[in-house]
């Protein structure tokens, strides 16, 4: 590893070093505001450096890339983290969470996401994944006043650990079969392997299990609603966006670099995608807790994303990147709204608490409506263009059956998104008012809504960008 590579790694270094510094500062200095402000600035700085600093090399230590694609996601996760920290400010204060640890763990997780999105080697994938998973183990359980938080932490921990086991063993088998951790070689090695090929395929299968856990594909999704419900809402906002998005980004990179062992398992992925969409949508229908509902909604979204990946065409991958981006923005915004309504002791999670809230908090509920509609895929929000792009790719690649399943799931999804809207606007005003939210929180909402509408009305902006960065 030479100096040039370190320069290329600057954003991640900023995140990690900044995180460490804040962790230490937090040990002496327990005022949350400066710590969080520091965290936000570190995240923004990382984002800025990813945006402005042209890396001198394309690959770092054979583990990570620093292509525009990687930089895009580094920027994106840094910004997400910044936004997440912004909405955490009041939350951390009011619930007296340990600010230093909180901020540094978020920054570490972000670094992990950035690394994962830019991984070019199986080791890179493993490292990045573990980096943010470890951070999340703690973040999820960090609210020590809440039983549910602990329970969620436990569930995520145990499941995550098992998934790590699967991933490690899968990587070992792939390495055994191909003799390389570096993705292109590993993929080629699989194609060339003779007697060891079954082991290689098995390895890819185990990798799929681990990844299925991370992005919650059915049947590895069961932890999702529990963890989303129990974890502190700002953490969920990052968990739902960054952790899933980074894995998705890595997957997109993987699919872009050539046919993997999964190419042989197209029909399996087809099945997983269909199952994920349908089961997710159906399970979301009877939910009465908005966080669980959004958890299942994320399950559906990951199933839909898988369609784009399956196509393995450039259109499909571009669609997937678009989809991930848009999903993350809308999802972050939705959790941000819940956060902004939370006060020191409670937050409106049960739909009963949302009854008629559209009249007490018209702006935020209106924004939530827009974001939910984007998640549902309604024009003129970005969600529609995302869905359009995915279905376009799938029909183009002759996955018409899957597209139809997607349509069906989309239809069912509308039912539960509309349920939330109906609860907010179409019931009598019974729920008590929530916290009015701070200006900072409102600005996050404005950014998310603005982005969702901007990319809905002018998706060309994002599509052009994606077209230029896609590996």
């Amino acid at each position, binding site marked *: 590893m030479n100096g040039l590579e370190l320069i290329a790694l600057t954003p991640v270094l900023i995140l990690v070093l900044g995180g460490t510094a804040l962790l230490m500062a937090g040990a002496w200095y327990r005022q949350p505001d400066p710590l969080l402000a520091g965290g936000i600035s570190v995240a923004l700085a990382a984002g800025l450096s990813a945006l402005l600093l042209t890396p001198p090399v394309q690959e770092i230590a054979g583990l990570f890339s620093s292509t525009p694609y990687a930089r895009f996601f580094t920027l994106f996760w840094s910004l997400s983290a910044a936004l997440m920290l912004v909405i955490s400010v009041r939350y951390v204060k009011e619930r007296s969470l340990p600010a230093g640890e909180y901020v540094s763990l978020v920054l570490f997780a972000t670094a992990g996401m950035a690394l994962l999105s830019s991984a070019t080697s199986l080791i890179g994938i493993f490292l990045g994944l573990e980096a943010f998973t470890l951070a999340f183990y703690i973040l999820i359980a960090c609210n020590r006043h809440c039983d549910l938080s602990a329970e969620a932490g436990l569930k995520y921990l145990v499941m995550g650990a098992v998934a790590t086991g699967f991933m490690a063993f899968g990587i070992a088998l792939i390495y055994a079969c191909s003799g390389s951790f570096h993705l292109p070689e590993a993929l080629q090695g699989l194609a060339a392997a003779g007697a060891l090929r079954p082991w290689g395929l098995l390895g890819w299968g185990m990798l799929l299990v681990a990844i299925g856990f991370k992005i919650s594909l059915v049947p590895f999704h069961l932890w999702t609603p529990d963890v989303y419900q129990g974890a502190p809402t700002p953490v969920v906002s990052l968990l739902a966006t960054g952790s899933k998005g980074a894995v998705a980004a890595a997957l997109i990179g993987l699919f872009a670099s050539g046919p993997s062992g999964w190419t042989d398992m197209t029909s399996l992925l087809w099945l997983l995608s269909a199952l994920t969409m349908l089961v997710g949508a159906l399970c979301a229908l009877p939910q009465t807790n908005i966080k669980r509902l959004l958890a299942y909604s994320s399950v559906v979204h990951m199933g839909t994303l898988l369609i784009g990946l399956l196509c393995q065409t450039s259109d499909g991958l571009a669609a997937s990147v678009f989809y991930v981006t848009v999903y993350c923005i809308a999802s972050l915004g939705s959790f941000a709204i819940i956060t902004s309504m939370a006060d020191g002791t409670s937050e409106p999670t049960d739909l009963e608490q949302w009854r008629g809230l559209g009249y007490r908090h018209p702006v935020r509920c209106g924004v939530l409506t827009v974001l939910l509609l984007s998640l549902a895929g309604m024009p003129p929000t970005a969600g529609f263009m995302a869905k359009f792009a995915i*279905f*376009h790719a799938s*029909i183009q690649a002759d996955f018409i059956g899957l*597209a139809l399943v997607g349509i069906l799931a989309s239809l069912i999804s*509308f039912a539960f998104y509309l349920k939330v809207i*109906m609860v907010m*606007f179409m019931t009598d005003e019974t729920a008590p008012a929530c916290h009015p939210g701070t200006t900072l929180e409102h600005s996050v909402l404005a950014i998310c809504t603005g982005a969702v509408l901007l990319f809905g009305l002018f998706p060309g902006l994002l599509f052009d960008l994606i077209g230029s960065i896609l590996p």
Partner: protein
Amino acid sequence: MAILPHIPWLTLLICLPLTGAMLCMLADERERTSHWLALATTAIIFVITIGLFISYGAGGAGWLLHEDAIWIDRYGIRYSLGMDGISLLLVLLTAFLHLIAVLASWPIERHAPRFLGLLLLLETGLMGIFLAIDLVLFYVFWEVMLIPMFLMIGIWGGEQRRQAALKFFLYALAGSLAMLVALIALYLLHGEQTGSYTFALAELMKTRLTLPQEILLFSGFMLAFAIKTPLVPFHTWLPDAHAESPASGAVDLTGLLLKTGVFGMIRIAFPLFPAATRFALPLLGILALTGLFHAAWGAYRQNDIKRLFAYSSISHVGLILLGLAAWQITAWEGSILLMLTNAIATGALFVLIAMIRQRTGTCQIDELSGLWGQAPNLSALFLLFALASLGLPGLANFAGEILVLIGTFQTHPVWASLAVVAVVFAAAYILRLVQGVIWGPISGTRITYDLTPREWLILVPMAILVIWLGLYPAPFLTPLHEPVQLLLGGSP
């Protein structure tokens, strides 16, 4: 508009209501302001459409107005709008009915700014649908229109409003998602053949498809349009939506939303898939006839006046579709005219029903009686529009109906003859309604006042239109001649 040739009128038609909607939403809690704002917006739009109608009312081949710009380059999606004689009339209708709807929603007290904002948003969507000639653009407007309607029914509706709104939304959505798939598939097929990937309607019409392909894609589009129209057996959402929606929502619903389905068939489904159309027309005709009778029968048993007119709308739509299925110029012009006339007559009726409801607190037939004795003016106008809806010669609907019937008889005498029978059915349910509501013993003294000046202002223009369209529909038929000829030119 020869004087100001460079103004993008069509974009203006779409953007003005959108701007108005935003301003209304911003005027939160200032109800009067938002009312006047909405009124001003709709009035300006109406004036513009009148201007367009005067300028382009003579009709002509091709697009009378056309605007085009790149929107999403990656998929060859363009922001392209075009107006021909048919859309001219529908745009005019949209502008007029929204003006009426804004006036009719004056009594709405609860969250009026938001209601008006949604109403204007709906107008944007409708204008877009009638003007878009790029399929994705069309689809976007097609979907956009659902949300305000959903909210209007769900927030300002009656007892069962939530179920009705959800049913409406999901039903319509099911259709449009099918259309989305068909639309993308068509785009890809066209792209593979010609190498140019585009969603432009005119280009896609040149796609060469095999019959099975055509039928498959055609069914995708038709599902969306048939549900929205609604064609039996996809109609059951409408009575619920109607019964629950507020007055101006109902005006929009019956007057315009239903027309978008028919318009979609005329503008998109038929021209894109001529062979499949030829194949499907008999089926369409039979379904239309079934709907005509089925809905008339359904209407006969309703006790809720709104529900009754919902069924009556379905029945009328059956006649409209029958005219389309006849594939004959007179029938088509009649169908389009009937779209207009039915929108006005039924729209006025919904406004009147709201007025009755406002006064008596009910719109159940068996709870009402002898309205004439208490509010003769209101009753007289109710009777007028009911008679128009019944197809009395000299009033609006008759002009459309007779054209449809005469045209249909040229190609399908049996259909037309059966359709005439349905005329009695219309008389049956409407007279039953009038007998129950207008006539009969005066029930208490529940109504304390007749029409107010605002209500006169709403109803008189509509009454004049109903009579005008009945006696002198020529200005509204002229712009249709050429586009209809063009559309019929190709197949069957």
